[in-house]
């Protein structure tokens, strides 16, 4: 009996925080608890009758919980001086050992549920393994978290450090620009489904009735489906925006020695420690609107950063294009921004416009044909055509700009790849040593004009390809040879 506290202590040492047990239960675990609690209240806490009537449900919950406890029990880890060792997976059968020198990113996050229990979720990532998930994920107690992060100090005394903390309005603009309706639709639908599963269809019905009310208000001027469509888009986008704001609020990035320390989050706090030499490339990203206003967002590609749900691998959320050089010279002094040396010939700029022009032409033709075939659906077809033509016309404008900014350049050991991918402009700065493959791609039309798409694969956990379009073939070949990209 004397040793029992020691036994308890040894049970918890080298194991995750007990809060993780909840994480190991099934997703529907809470759904089972609600009717049980409701029935207990209805029976005025008559435990005996409750047990008699609900024994099967209670048994199922106990089995689920026991299974979660077993999973928690078998997952163990060791934090050593130079490596971390973890027995993960079902019953701790997968033994993984990662030397700290091989780690690209360590991310610690503390969500709403974890904060009161002083627990941290820590993600370990290397350049290998799955792209979708981290190599090791552990829920650590504060003592273990502190022991681990003692090997990765956030502030090394005596070493110069530079911190970039964007203003809150910059974070708001960043969230505004990087909010996507599509991801919002997915998140919003998931939210509605999950909530309706827990509290029944009440909330869903209330939402639909609110939509109906608004629809009736606007129905005098607009058709109902237009209002419904607009509401879905606006709400989804707002939801995506809120998620981005919460995720990137209080964003700071610090460079000290060979590592970056990135802190962000409002509800869920996140800390990333990124090894500078493991960064595969820097991506100065712009949308067409950002290009017009001469602002950009600097992202980095490093295994583990930006892997989490709804996380953007950002280094500088928003800055002006002219300030990038000065910000990067402080955060990444070893990285120049090479100017473009090879660009598409002026006569080849029309090639950028082929696909968007075709799409813009197809829509009115399809609209004309469909209205002739289904005159009763005229209103819906016309509305759909207008909705389709807007993104295609926007794409045409984007591709006109792309024709003038596409190209590639070199300085010292660094290569620049400037290209436009659908609606986004990318200005990639990559070290030559981080390039694994070069492809010259030609369509029959390009072959006749002796131009090519130069595709460059950079290091990463998954296939990572950057396509610089319509470059003169001979110049591209000479550039690759002269720069010694593959040597």
């Amino acid at each position: 009996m004397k040793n029992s506290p020691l036994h308890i202590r040894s049970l918890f040492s080298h194991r995750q925080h007990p809060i993780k047990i909840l994480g190991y239960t099934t997703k529907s675990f809470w759904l089972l608890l609600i009717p049980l609690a409701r029935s207990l209240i209805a029976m005025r806490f008559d435990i005996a009758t409750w047990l008699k009537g609900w024994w099967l449900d209670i048994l199922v919950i106990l089995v689920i919980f026991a299974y979660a406890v077993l999973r928690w029990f078998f997952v163990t880890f060791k934090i050593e001086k130079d490596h971390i060792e973890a027995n993960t997976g079902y019953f701790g059968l997968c033994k993984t050992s990662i030397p700290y020198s091989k780690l690209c990113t360590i991310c610690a996050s503390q969500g709403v549920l974890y904060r009161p229990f002083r627990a941290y979720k820590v993600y370990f990532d290397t350049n290998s393994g799955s792209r979708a998930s981290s190599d090791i994920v552990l829920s650590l107690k504060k003592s273990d978290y502190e022991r681990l992060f003692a090997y990765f100090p956030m502030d090394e005394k005596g070493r110069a450090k530079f911190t970039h903390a964007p203003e809150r309005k910059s974070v708001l603009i960043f969230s505004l620009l990087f909010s996507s309706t599509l991801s919002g639709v997915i998140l919003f639908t998931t939210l509605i489904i999950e909530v309706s599963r827990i509290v029944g269809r009440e909330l869903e019905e209330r939402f639909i009735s609110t939509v109906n009310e608004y629809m009736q208000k606007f129905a005098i001027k607009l058709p109902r489906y237009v209002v419904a469509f607009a509401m879905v888009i606006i709400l989804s986008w707002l939801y995506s925006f809120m998620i981005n704001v919460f995720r990137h609020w209080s964003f700071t990035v610090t460079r000290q020695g060979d590592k970056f320390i990135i802190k962000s989050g409002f509800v869920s706090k996140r800390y990333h420690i990124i090894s500078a030499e493991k960064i595969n490339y820097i991506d100065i990203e712009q949308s067409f609107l950002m290009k017009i206003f001469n602002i950009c967002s600097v992202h980095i590609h490093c295994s583990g950063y930006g892997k989490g749900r709804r996380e953007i691998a950002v280094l500088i959320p928003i800055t002006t294009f002219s300030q990038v050089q000065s910000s990067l010279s402080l955060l990444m002094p070893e990285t120049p921004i090479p100017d473009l040396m090879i660009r598409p010939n002026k006569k080849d700029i029309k090639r950028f416009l082929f696909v968007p022009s075709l799409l813009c032409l197809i829509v009115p033709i399809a609209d004309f044909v469909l209205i002739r075939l289904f005159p009763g659906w005229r209103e819906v077809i016309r509305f759909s055509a207008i909705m389709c033509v807007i993104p295609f016309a926007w794409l045409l404008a984007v591709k006109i700009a792309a024709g003038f900014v596409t190209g590639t350049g070199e300085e010292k050991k660094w290569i620049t790849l400037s290209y436009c991918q659908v609606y986004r402009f990318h200005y990639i700065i990559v070290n030559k040593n981080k390039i694994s493959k070069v492809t010259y791609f030609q369509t029959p039309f390009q072959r006749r004009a002796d131009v090519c798409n130069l595709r460059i694969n950079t290091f990463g956990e998954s296939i990572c390809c950057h396509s610089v379009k319509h470059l003169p073939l001979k110049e591209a070949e000479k550039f690759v040879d002269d720069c010694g990209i593959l040597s």
Partner: protein
Amino acid sequence: MKKYYPSKAALNFLRLVIAAAAIGLTYVCFRYLHSIEILMYILVGIFWGGGFALCFIFLPLYFAKTSYSISSDIISKHSGMIFTTRQLMRGGSVQYVTAVITPFSRFTALNFIVINALGGKIFLAFLSKKDAAEITAALNRAIEKKEW
């Protein structure tokens, strides 16, 4: 730098498979679609026309236009008839090699190699068994010896 080409045995084997598939599909059409003659003849025409195009235009062109080169520091692949590609991979970035050797591949030449690098891969198809073994051995030797 040693150059490799897809094996002619694979081309002949694929021609045989396509011919067998066309015969099988024709039989199915005659057996089950004889009541809708027009559809039956259209489908049979499509199968044989497609098969002919594949056997005597598409596949020979594909085999003629594809080549692989392996040197001490660069792996390259030229391919494509309509859309041509020239892929060059830095030897040093190769992580591992996956070789798929099928049964009877001495006669069918259905041997494939996937060269996996960080952030990219190259697929070498329809190699003769000897070539596949030679390439795999050379690449594995280089990875082990860390020539790259």
